[in-house]
């Protein structure tokens, strides 16, 4: 809804930042999505994880999804085994901590923290657009 209303119209851009606060499964998922990003496959895998697709937490399920998204599974798997994207996720996490993020989701609109409800974000975007 926000994406259609503000991002598709060119009024806002939306950036996801890794903040795995819920332990090892969250880190695992973040590493997987970051590895997909290495091949330009961030958003499809992001969406599947956001749908709480439990099959992604098995090797077979993750492979099925990665291949369905048109990514090279061998490259993806090597990225996962090397944990090559972990420093990036740690850096994102560190930035979140520095900015006072204590839980997820946490939303900032032009650097100002807002409630994560649709209304609060929409109001903040409208205010930012109308600011002199």
């Amino acid at each position, binding site marked *: 809804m926000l994406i259609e209303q503000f991002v598709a119209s060119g009024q806002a851009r939306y*950036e996801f930042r890794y903040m795995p606060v819920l332990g090892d499964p969250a880190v695992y998922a973040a590493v997987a999505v970051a590895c997909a990003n290495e091949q330009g496959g961030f958003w499809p895998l992001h969406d599947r994880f956001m749908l709480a697709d439990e099959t992604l937490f098995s090797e077979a399920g993750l492979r099925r999804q990665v291949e369905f998204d048109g990514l090279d599974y061998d490259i993806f798997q090597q990225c996962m085994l090397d944990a090559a994207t972990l420093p990036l996720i740690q850096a994102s996490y560190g*930035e979140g901590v520095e900015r006072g993020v204590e839980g997820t989701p946490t939303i900032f609109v032009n650097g100002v923290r807002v409630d994560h409800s649709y209304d609060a974000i929409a109001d903040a975007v409208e205010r930012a657009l109308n600011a002199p």
Partner: protein
Amino acid sequence: MRGLVGVLVALAVLLAACGSADDVEPTGTETSERAPREATVGQAQQQQQSQQSQQIQAVQQQADPQQVGQQEQQTVDDQPAAEPSDPEPQPEAVDHSAVAPEPSIVGTHKGVRSEGRTLGLAAAPVLIEHFGDFT
């Protein structure tokens, strides 16, 4: 003549006995040698299967959020509060400048321009940042 026949019969019985003894011993030796060799191969196969099984289980355990959750819970329960048991990334340990930049591959997602983790135009006046996780 009877004596000759008797001697021949005795000799035949003796030869038959020797022959059967010769037959039995190598078979027994062969069997006793083959048995451990097959067992070794069998053990190696079992060991290999067991190792593969353990590796698969390790991957599955690593990937299974319920089991990971159980392990985490056990870790938290078992360790005294004074000992650090936080498995999460430690931001202090990361030098941000040393992190390799991500590839920003441009594409389209649901009709919206995408560039890596970003949706929308770079020139858009408002930036919405979402700090999130996937669980």
